[in-house]
């Protein structure tokens, strides 16, 4: 069974990614964290995650770490997404559907402008 489609393809991708890394002056630490507790998943967190990954793919955004966290106790606000840009304090967004996720990726992660209307106070 083809576990990995083609190892050669993967090696090529790796080399391309390495080159891109060298071009980047200061990658900084950009983290997008999707809450994936039972509450988050039931509220659509997987679609939110998919939307974030889709943005990275289509806009070819390099250097973003996408990860997840469990339930943070604000189940009614799920799906919740947290964004950390470098040393800045973490910004927490509530009710992030696929569309809001695209906006967060564009305005906040790429352009550095948090989306005020979707921020929740923790």
């Amino acid at each position, binding site marked *: 069974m083809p576990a990995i489609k083609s190892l050669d393809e993967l090696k090529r991708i790796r080399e*391309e990614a390495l080159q891109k890394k060298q071009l980047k002056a200061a990658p900084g630490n950009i983290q997008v964290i999707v809450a994936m507790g039972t509450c988050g998943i039931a509220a659509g967190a997987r679609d939110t995650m998919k939307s974030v990954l889709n943005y990275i793919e289509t806009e070819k955004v390099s250097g973003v770490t996408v990860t997840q966290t*469990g339930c943070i106790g604000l189940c009614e606000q799920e799906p919740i997404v947290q964004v950390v840009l470098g040393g800045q304090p973490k910004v927490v967004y509530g009710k992030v559907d696929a569309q809001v996720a695209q906006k967060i990726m564009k305005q906040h992660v790429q352009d550095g402008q948090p989306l005020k209307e979707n921020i929740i106070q923790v």
Partner: protein
Amino acid sequence: MKEIALHLLDIAENSVAAQSKNISIHVHEDLPQDRLSACVIDDGRGMDAATVQQVLDPFYTTRSTRKVGLGIPLLKLAAEMAEGSFSLQSELGNGAWVEAEFRHSHIDRMPLGDLASTFLTLLISHPQIDWTFLYRVTDENRQSCDFLFESAELKSQLGDISLTEPEVLTFLRNMFEEGIEAVAPQTVAE
């Protein structure tokens, strides 16, 4: 939860929380037997017998942020609604084995759903874990077809390149989507 794939994502998150190093997800659509089984197997910290009983209770949870733990009870209910069964085996220090089984053709059996997205989400979110994903379909002629993914091999190829680099993401998404599609039964009424 609307999909078995979403339940698997949820149950696998329990395995991650239990500090597992290796997590396997096996899904088997057995058409001649009219069964669909899904299991999550981990090597995490496990549970003692009393806790195994407790996790079936929605008012039990190990977390402190809220007072209910619905993941396992929801999956158990979903399986039992579709003439299926649920089992959870674990020992303290010895990992856990969660299996849900459904009657494939049962009208209340929820769709398998988007397995590719579940696998991709787990892999991206927890790159430190060695994942094994196996999706097997046995057709009416008792021929089995597998999609198998093991993340250890991928990691050794990628080295220190992040899974969230755009090219890598495209590669992974296509691999899961095409691999699963190639195995899935032709008559998908989902």
